[in-house]
């Protein structure tokens, strides 16, 4: 019970690592930086293991387990406690964050070895872990928001880690500002939640929401408004339409950052938040539909862009956006457990993909353009092998982790209580595209003839400290989904069963709302799985045909469908569109109205006038300050007379 009684330890460990590294790391040799930063994250993971062990000994009545440490602030009825919470959902999220985080820290030891600001990198990574754990363990919305903003800050710092590079600094700013748009909604959502429930504690909020009536699809009430505002925050943080534009640019950061923050953990915070707020969302069907539609649209949309990208990390970035769309889709149709399941498996294989891509880039001496790779299979076999496993997992090859989680989402979209045929078709099409662009990546990178200058680029396999995390993640990308395996012979879904207490009330509500819905037969599940596998295989075949069988064909296709290809290559011109319709006018208004008229004319004028007045009165006061004791005494007398006259006049 030690860790359960001292939950704060899990937070304190990475924070301590961060502070220590930041304050002392500058003067340390690299191995001490490693010891402090990686060491504290390993300790955090170990304490998580102990926490999980203790957690499984708890009885159902003791969950959620809440550790309330102190009252952070009170103002009238508004009260925020520094309180941490552990339930089944927390256990899953904590496991993903600490474990994947630990592996990426270890990998970074090799990857960042030659970079300047080594200690700064690790201090910021540790700080990120601290905030991410705060986000996941918080027992109220405000504390979650602290973590939420904290990870945003670390993301900003780490994207612009190479801050001498203008593109990196710009990308950091873009990420910060774009997510801030969503956070604006999130903040209002928190305030509205407090206004509605009188508290921002999860426990109180959910208890209050459970007793409220379900709102209609067309009659939005307060719950729908709150959920839509919270969704705005989630859309920003998880890079969904229309706020996804920052994530591809975020690839300017070092690759371990992309793997940890922009694939495995931070960007999934939006999904986690929606799942955490499931009681609220299931009372607001309109908001649920919005979640599903945004998720589905993003999944398909980002997958199409992924087809035409040449930068290996950009492909993975769009793939992340697309997979996050799947998770939103799952939450939107009420399959929260499936969404979280995909979040977990995705953390494994997407972190692996990024780390392997990092290994490729490392091997190629910094080259990221796949058009300048090719034929690397034999030269970096470990990287190739692990990346292939991850690709099979994300494409949904049978028995690989991604297969189970994606299959569950598609199944729920097709046959769940909130099933929706359109969403299913969108989802399955995105699955086809996923297999297609992922194998395109594999074929362009590892197969065919080398398209780089073999005399100048010395391709070499990465050091063991980088390969070990790859292998561990590859194993998890295979077996990470096997919790579900028993369902295929009619057994129990262990993952869903584990998370059931968290989502029980939402599941029950969905069943109540759709009385006509019945549990689909087992055979349907197998059929659906077969369809999904078939579709993925078609995607693989297309990639194989275009990039192995007829390598000249893609260019012809691109030429034949010139406008479409250009549209995809340029990511639908969304950045340009945003630039033209939002940023341009904003800059114009800022410069011509806010700056020249309001700032210079109105504000500066007023301020200068006031400053002039103030200074003049200051000068006057200075004259009063003659330094002469007698005149001071006179002032005291005048004051005393004034006070006494005033007092006596008051009682008159």
């Amino acid at each position, binding site marked *: 019970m030690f860790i359960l009684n001292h939950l704060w330890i899990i937070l304190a460990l990475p924070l301590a690592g961060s502070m220590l590294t930041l304050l002392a790391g500058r003067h340390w040799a690299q191995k001490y930086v490693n010891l402090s930063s990686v060491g504290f994250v390993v300790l955090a993971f170990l304490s998580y293991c102990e926490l999980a062990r203790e957690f499984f000994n708890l009885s159902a009545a003791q969950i959620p387990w809440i550790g309330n440490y*102190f*009252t*952070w*602030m*009170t*103002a009238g009825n508004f009260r925020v406690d520094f309180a941490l919470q552990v339930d089944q959902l927390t256990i899953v999220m904590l496991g993903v964050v600490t474990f994947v985080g630990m592996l990426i820290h270890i990998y970074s030891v090799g990857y960042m070895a030659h970079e300047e600001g080594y200690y700064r990198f690790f201090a910021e990574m540790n700080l990120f872990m601290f905030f991410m754990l705060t986000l996941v363990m918080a027992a109220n919305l405000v504390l979650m928001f602290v973590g939420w903003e904290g990870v945003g800050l670390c993301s900003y710092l780490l994207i612009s880690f190479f801050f001498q590079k203008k593109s990196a600094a710009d990308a950091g700013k873009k990420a910060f500002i774009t997510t801030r748009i969503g956070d604006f909604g999130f903040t209002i959502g928190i305030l509205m939640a407090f206004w509605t429930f009188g508290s921002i504690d999860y426990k109180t909020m959910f208890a209050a929401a459970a007793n409220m009536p379900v709102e209609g699809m067309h009659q939005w009430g307060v719950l729908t408004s709150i959920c839509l505002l919270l969704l705005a925050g989630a859309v920003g943080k998880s890079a969904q339409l229309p706020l996804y534009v920052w994530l591809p640019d975020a690839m300017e950061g070092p690759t371990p950052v992309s793997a940890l923050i922009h694939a495995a953990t931070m960007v999934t915070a939006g999904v986690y938040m929606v799942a955490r707020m499931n009681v609220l969302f299931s009372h607001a069907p309109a908001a649920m539909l919005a979640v599903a539609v945004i998720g589905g649209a993003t999944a398909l949309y980002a997958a199409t862009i992924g087809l035409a990208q040449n930068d290996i990390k950009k492909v993975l970035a769009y793939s992340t956006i697309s997979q996050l769309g799947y998770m939103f889709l799952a939450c939107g149709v009420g399959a929260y457990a499936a969404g979280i399941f995909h979040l977990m498996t995705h953390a494994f294989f997407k972190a692996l993909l990024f780390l392997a891509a990092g290994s490729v880039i490392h091997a190629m001496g910094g080259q990221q353009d796949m058009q300048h790779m090719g034929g690397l299979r034999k030269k970096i076999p470990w990287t190739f092998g692990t990346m292939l496993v991850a690709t099979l997992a994300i494409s949904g090859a049978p028995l690989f982790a991604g297969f189970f989680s994606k299959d569950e989402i598609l199944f729920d979209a097709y046959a769940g209580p909130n099933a929706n045929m359109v969403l299913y078709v969108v989802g399955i099409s995105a699955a086809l595209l996923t297999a297609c662009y992922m194998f395109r990546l594999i074929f362009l990178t590892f197969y065919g003839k080398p398209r780089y200058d073999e005399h100048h680029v010395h391709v070499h396999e990465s050091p063991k400290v980088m390969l070990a995390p790859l292998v561990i993640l590859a194993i998890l990308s295979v077996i990470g989904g096997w919790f579900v395996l028993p369902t295929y012979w009619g057994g129990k879904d262990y993952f869903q069963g584990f998370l059931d207490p968290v989502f029980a009330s939402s599941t029950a509500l969905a069943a109540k709302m759709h009385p006509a819905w019945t549990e689909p037969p087992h055979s349907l599940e197998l059929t659906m799985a077969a369809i999904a596998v078939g579709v993925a295989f078609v995607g693989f075949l297309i990639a194989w045909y275009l990039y192995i069988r007829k390598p000249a064909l893609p260019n012809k296709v691109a030429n034949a469908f010139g406008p479409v290809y250009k549209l995809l290559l340029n990511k639908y011109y969304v950045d340009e569109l945003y630039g033209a319709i939002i940023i341009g006018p904003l800059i114009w208004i800022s410069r011509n109205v806010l700056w020249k008229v309001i700032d210079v004319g109105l504000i500066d004028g007023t301020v200068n006038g006031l*400053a002039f007045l*103030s*200074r003049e*009165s*200051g*000068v006057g*006061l*200075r004259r*009063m*300050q003659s*330094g002469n*004791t007698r005149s*001071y*005494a006179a*002032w*005291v007398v*005048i*004051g*005393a007379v*004034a*006070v*006494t006259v*005033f*007092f*006596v006049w*008051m*009682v*008159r």
Partner: protein
Amino acid sequence: MFPPLQDLYRIAPELVLCAFGMLVMLIDPFVPATRKRSMGWLAFAGTLVALASLRWAALNQGSAYSGLFRVDMFSLFVHAIVIGVSALAILGSFDYLDRENIQRGEYYALILFATAGMGILAGSTELITAFVGLEMSSISTYILVGFRRTVLKSNESSLKYFLLGSFATAFFLYGIALTYGATRSTRFDVVNQAIAAHGAGPLLILGLGLIFVGLGFKVVAAPFQIYTPDVYEGAPTPVTAILACGPKAAAFAVMLRIFYSAFGSASHVWFWAIWVSAILTMCIGNFAALVQTNVKRLLAYSSIAHAGYILVAFAAASEIGVAAVLFYLAAYAAMTLGAFLIVAHVGGTNEQRLNIEDYAGLGTKHPWIAACFALFLFSLLGLPATGGFLGKLYAFQSALDQRIVWLVVIAAVNSVIGAYYYLKVVVAMYFHESNKEWAPMPMRAPMFVVLLLTAIATIYFGVLPNRLMELAIASARSLR
């Protein structure tokens, strides 16, 4: 009749402070001139023992000496502030006194005596006791202000402070006489009962007015703030740090007891006086600070302005208002003490670097000192996540709760004006090139500890204010 032994426990902090003060005076002649710093450590130990003895006093809460003195949460809270201020100021004085070549034992003894006086002031529930406390702290500080005996300015401000201070005390004493004449008692509870029974007659109110003159002088409320810049500027800077924090807190404490407890039912009479005084104090402090080029003088004006903000919470005259005053005093003590001690440190020998342009380039040359100073200035300015911000927030909030809207509006405008002169110093530190060579400024451990503690306190009160606020509310509750 002999007072019960328990009463001695209740004034344990004062006894400890006086005992150590006398001990310092007794040992001092036998300590060679080069070892005088040890007297400082002895005095510091005295403050620590006094802080520890607060616990003893806390275990024996209640009235002592037939209603002259009282130990309650309120008095303990103020005791903690004033003793803490003195302890840190003693640590912060070591280097300064060495530099000015005035390292002498009586300096520390006087600080201890002054602190004991402030303690009596905080716990007094009777006017004559309050007067004794006031004089004890005043007379000690008169001497401290003139402690740089060879410096003309220091002598001048000591004399000025003494003359004007005695003048103001005379008003206070006269107020006591009138109050006694009207109620036949000087005890706060009896005065309160008399007002409840017969209402407040002109004689009594006149007495209150004169008491306000005397205490207003100590808390630097306008129109009695006039001496402040001269005295603060001439005093040795560590003494200025004490003046700006300790006596002010103690005088505010006794003022709360008199106005809020004794004259609470006549609050309609004094409310407008406080209202007007608050506005005058804030405006005079801020506007005069705008044109200052001397950082020490600028901070003196800033301390006037802050007295005005505290008066805003004072005007609220509610439980939460009293709590806000106490919170403000604690947060203010931390940031002001830190700021003045940095001025003492940067000033160097003979306090030669006091102008704003002398601070140019401090940010690059001494980043840690500059960072601390910036923190204190931000807190004085009231930036979020600092103690100063929450102090203002609670003060203004408590006034708004009582629907004193205009006063809060004026206070808010004033705190914006304050931004100008605080930021001027920050800008100089970070964005102006240094025009002089910086002589090295070695920082010894005691000073480092003081800056660290005050900086931590400033951030702690700003980020996790709840603990302190709960204590302040409990203290306010014990007042009535």
